[in-house]
């Protein structure tokens, strides 16, 4: 059903893009295969509607869609890693998908399924009977020299589980249109998350083109994949517990791991979250150890078990291989599959396929001289389509149960109808690619639009955090709360300081209040005797430099460094944060990235205000969208504990203010705690320290008062796991102590604070009596709830390089 360019395209107004493309093809190698145009220059099946639609948008329209796609990509965190030292990627998603006709796809599909069956049989021999080596059917020397051939994996996979449950295959088309294999991904087949994400972004950015297109949908594949994983379990077969084992936020693929875990609705676990006991794999959770039935492994083979494999690996779980041998956990894929990725196997596959399967190999490998076919890709300006070489990663998954298709041989594998396509020379890494593409496999009939993927599984924000919340996640949420609050408090203090710097920008009118604020910001520090340790900052310019240094990424404890702590904790719990909260965090990251010590003071003040607003928006969204379960409680405890300690420290500083005793500083306290309006409304009077103290210490209806915050902490801590015990644990005892100090305070004694030394003493004692137990609370919480397990280490270091 090819369409003639000259006639129908012209009527549809698509002549421009296609004719231009055809001209470019003509200038290249005429007669070579192109994905979009056949050798008569006519559109291949399935491209017509897309091309017409994109043409109709015009360059400006396409540019707008492109910008929308990029914005969504950035938010999703696909290019999030650019912020970090880790190698990330920053590709753009082409608005034109790669369309592959159903008939052509079926041939590729059959070849890939055969390849997965072949590799499964090959694994069983290489790590089992080893007959193929002696039969001369394998490159023995190359395989033995490969770091991916793991001798400890010999006979390590229980025979009732297949080695390969998921297989990433990189393919390309050559100039004749023949599909050829570039490589295999078996250890940690990445890319599914990106393929899924590309599809979702296309659907959002180009809904009219996507909605009714006769293309195969992806949703069914991952549902089936989930069933494949659960079907591997040895125990708890009704409801197996599956985790995705990730190397952690340091991995360039971490965002995808979080994405996939969330999509499959399984827990994301790092090696340190897991432990092998009684030959069973367990997850450390708040409620104790949770048996793990299946581990979807996204760590490379050699790093998975420091006992038997790479001894210096910090990513794996000691004893994992033994647990797998003992059927204490099913691993997908089996450890050792990496050796099958060896490129030198390619030449041996035709004979191996005959030998192991009795079939002719369907998909040849690419060779060094294979030239790629062309496919159209939009240029950066969205003006022209350019003939470009593409790589395609496809995903093959084992079919749950044993499915027999009528009239055919049993097929144990099936292929995702789509994949991740990227621009680049054959075999170039996807992460380095500048452009990726969605891949559309045409269907004969319009496919029902399956309600979109993630939404189909309930709320976009999902935490499963009952007591099975991993302890590490609880800890990260706690610190997320603490750093978020610290960032907010610091921004508020800094804003007040900058405000005063602007009001008194002449050296001779020194504002002593500003000096107090510099103290509160710890920019100039005093020791216990009230003497300054750092040299006092003199004059406007010194003070301004000191304040603006708080916007410098290299200043410790300044705003950028607090933010990166916040971000680090947020990233390690990526799959527990809602999309909206994440979007705010992304905006905050962009805002912080504009910070520099060269800001002018009013811009700096606005930056502080933005931070406070964004942090509030972030926690607000978390409160609105996270289930109010243990994970959220830890975050809330972190926030209010930090806020409480910050307020107490500020009050103490105000009380002991060596430079400007008096009301002005109390005003700053009200402003930094955002209580000025509340005070005015309540007291409608001038500033009285007693009234301020009442508002900030005792008023339990004021969310920034000590009384309120203590109550909130108490309520949250009482609802943590283990709190039903009749014995009071350390954190509850500390809270009781702080509460008692507050409630037993002699308010009479605190009156006339401004001019009575006795009242000042009383307040000092009260503050100390509050600070002392609360300072120990963080430690007590982590002792009770977070697993501070020492990193496992080797009895004897076996590293020959050490």
């Amino acid at each position, binding site marked *: 059903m090819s369409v003639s360019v000259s006639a129908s395209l012209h009527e549809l107004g698509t002549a421009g893009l296609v004719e231009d493309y055809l001209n470019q093809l003509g200038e290249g190698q005429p007669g070579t295969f192109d994905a979009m145009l056949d050798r008569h220059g006519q559109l291949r099946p399935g491209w017509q509607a897309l091309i017409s639609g994109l043409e109709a948008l015009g360059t400006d329209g396409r540019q707008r869609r492109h910008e929308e796609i990029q914005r969504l990509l950035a938010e999703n965190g696909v290019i999030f890693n650019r912020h970090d030292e880790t190698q990330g990627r920053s590709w753009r998603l082409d608005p034109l998908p790669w369309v592959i006709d159903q008939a052509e796809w079926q041939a590729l599909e059959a070849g890939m399924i055969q390849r997965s069956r072949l590799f499964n049989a090959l694994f069983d021999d290489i790590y089992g009977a080893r007959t193929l080596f002696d039969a001369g059917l394998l490159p023995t020397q190359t395989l033995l020299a490969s770091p991916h051939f793991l001798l400890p994996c010999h006979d390590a996979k229980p025979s009732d589980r297949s080695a390969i449950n998921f297989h990433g295959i990189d393919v390309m088309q050559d100039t004749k249109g023949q599909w050829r294999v570039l490589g295999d991904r078996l250890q940690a087949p990445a890319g599914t998350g990106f393929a899924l994400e590309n599809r979702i972004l296309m659907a959002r950015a180009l809904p009219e083109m996507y909605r009714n297109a006769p293309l195969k949908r992806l949703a069914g594949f991952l549902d089936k994949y989930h069933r494949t994983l659960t079907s591997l379990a040895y125990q708890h077969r009704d409801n197996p517990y599956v985790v995705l084992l990730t190397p952690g936020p340091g991995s360039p693929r971490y965002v995808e791991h979080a994405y996939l875990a969330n999509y499959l609705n399984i827990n994301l676990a790092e090696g340190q979250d897991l432990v092998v*006991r009684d030959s069973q794999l367990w997850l450390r959770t708040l409620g104790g150890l949770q048996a793990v039935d299946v581990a979807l492994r996204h760590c490379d083979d050699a790093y998975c078990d420091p006992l038997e494999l790479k001894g210096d690996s910090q990513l794996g779980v000691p004893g994992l291989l033994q647990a797998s041998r003992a059927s204490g956990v099913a691993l997908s894929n089996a450890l050792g599959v990496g050796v099958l990725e060896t490129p030198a196997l390619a030449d041996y596959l035709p004979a191996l396929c005959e030998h192991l399967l009795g079939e002719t190999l369907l998909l040849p490998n690419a060779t060094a001289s294979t030239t790629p076919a062309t496919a159209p890709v939009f240029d950066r300006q969205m003006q022209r389509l350019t003939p470009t070489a593409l790589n395609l990663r496809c995903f093959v998954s084992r079919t749950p149960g044993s499915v027999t298709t009528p009239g055919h041989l049993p097929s144990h594998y099936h292929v995702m109808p789509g994949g991740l396509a990227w621009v680049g020379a054959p075999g170039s890494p996807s992460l380095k690619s500048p452009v990726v593409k969605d891949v559309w496999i045409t269907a004969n009939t319009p496919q029902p639009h399956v309600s979109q993927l993630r939404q189909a599984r309930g709320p976009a924000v999902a935490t499963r955090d009952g007591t099975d919340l991993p302890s590490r996640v609880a800890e990260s949420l706690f610190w997320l709360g603490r750093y978020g609050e610290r960032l907010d408090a610091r921004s508020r203090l800094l804003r007040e300081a900058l405000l005063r710097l602007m009001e008194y920008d002449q050296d001779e009118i020194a504002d002593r209040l500003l000096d107090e604020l510099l103290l509160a910001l710890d920019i100039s520090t005093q020791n216990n005797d009230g003497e300054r340790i750092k040299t006092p900052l003199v004059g406007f310019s010194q003070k301004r430099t000191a304040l603006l240094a708080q916007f410098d990424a290299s200043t410790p404890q300044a705003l950028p460094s607090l933010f990166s702590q916040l971000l680090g904790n947020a990233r390690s719990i990526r799959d527990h944060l809602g999309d909206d909260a994440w979007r705010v965090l992304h905006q905050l990251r962009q805002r912080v990235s504009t910070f520099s010590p060269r800001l002018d003071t009013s811009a700096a003040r606005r930056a502080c205000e933005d931070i406070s607003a964004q942090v509030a928006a972030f926690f607000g969204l978390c409160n609105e969208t996270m289930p109010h379960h243990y994970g959220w409680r830890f975050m809330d405890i972190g926030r209010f504990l930090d806020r409480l300690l910050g307020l107490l420290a500020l009050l103490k500083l105000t009380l002991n203010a060596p430079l400007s005793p008096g009301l002005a500083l109390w005003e700053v306290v009200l402003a930094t705690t955002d209580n000025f309006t509340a005070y005015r409304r309540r007291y409608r009077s001038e500033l009285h320290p007693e009234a301020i103290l009442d508002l900030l210490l005792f008023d339990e209806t004021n969310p920034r008062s000590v009384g309120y915050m203590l109550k909130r902490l108490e309520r949250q801590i009482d609802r943590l796991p283990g709190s039903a015990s009749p014995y009071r644990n350390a954190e509850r005892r500390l809270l009781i102590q702080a509460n008692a100090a507050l409630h037993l305070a002699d308010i009479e004694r605190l009156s006339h604070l401004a001019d009575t030394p006795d009242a000042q003493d009383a307040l000092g004692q009260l503050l100390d009596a509050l600070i002392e137990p609360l300072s120990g609370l963080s430690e007590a919480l982590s002792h009770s709830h977070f697993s501070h397990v020492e990193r496992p280490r080797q009895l004897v270091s076996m590293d020959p390089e050490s």
Partner: protein
Amino acid sequence: MNYTLRHTTRYHYDAPVTLCHSEARVLPRKTPHQQCGASALTISPVPQVQAERRDVFGNRVLYFALEEIHQTLEVTVVTPLHTQPLSPLPVNSAAWESVAQQLDNDSRFDTQLYRLDSPFIRRNDELATFARRCFTPGRPLVEAALALNQLIYHTFEYDPSVTTLATPLSDVLAHQRGVCQDFAHLAIGALRSVGLAARYVSGYLETQPPPGQPRLIGADASHAWLATWIPDWGWLALDPTNGTVAGEQHPVLGWGRDYADVAPLKGVMNGGGDHQLDVEVDVMPLTGGAA
């Protein structure tokens, strides 16, 4: 010969260990020249999990896990064992170059496994040059291998003070001193660097007390040597530390590509701090009676 082998490994940790996964290769394997009786194995504290398997080399591997807090670990194995004299060495053997050539074209797993680089042993020119002092052109393989064994025995000094677990072979060559493990690694590296197959053998050596003195209990030690593949004959075991062919007096524990494959005890643990290690080995010859 009939022996009773006793091998005790004892760790004392400075701090409590909360969890420890271990692999022990302390159960001797059967060979054409060696029969083993049932080993009596004692692990203290008693492990929560214990499982035996064969590794890719055919060695017996004992996995055990200690899941309760402990501060010492003791593993003792007592094995009755019977060794037989070696078959006579081949009178004629092919020139070593032709064997190397033949091995190079051999795709069998067991051949290539012991010809390539391994964790502690990397082939290089320096080792090849060393080997060629014995592997002169056209020399029969067995003769050359025996000469290499003698070369190391005569020119290298046994010195337990200089080596650690991971002394690089270049240091061993430069200083001409080391322990049995270094000499075995050196010979293996030399043989592999000229294209031959060689494997590391871990085991024991019966030691003779000085004349007139009784045998000291626990005074023996683990020993290590190597074996090289002689086509149409088998693995020729050489003990460069003693300049002998390893035979009836060399009870075998297991073998691998190098020490890393046959370390007697490996483990990964939580906690522990520093530790002290004691190893006691007895190779007690039994006079008369079967093992």
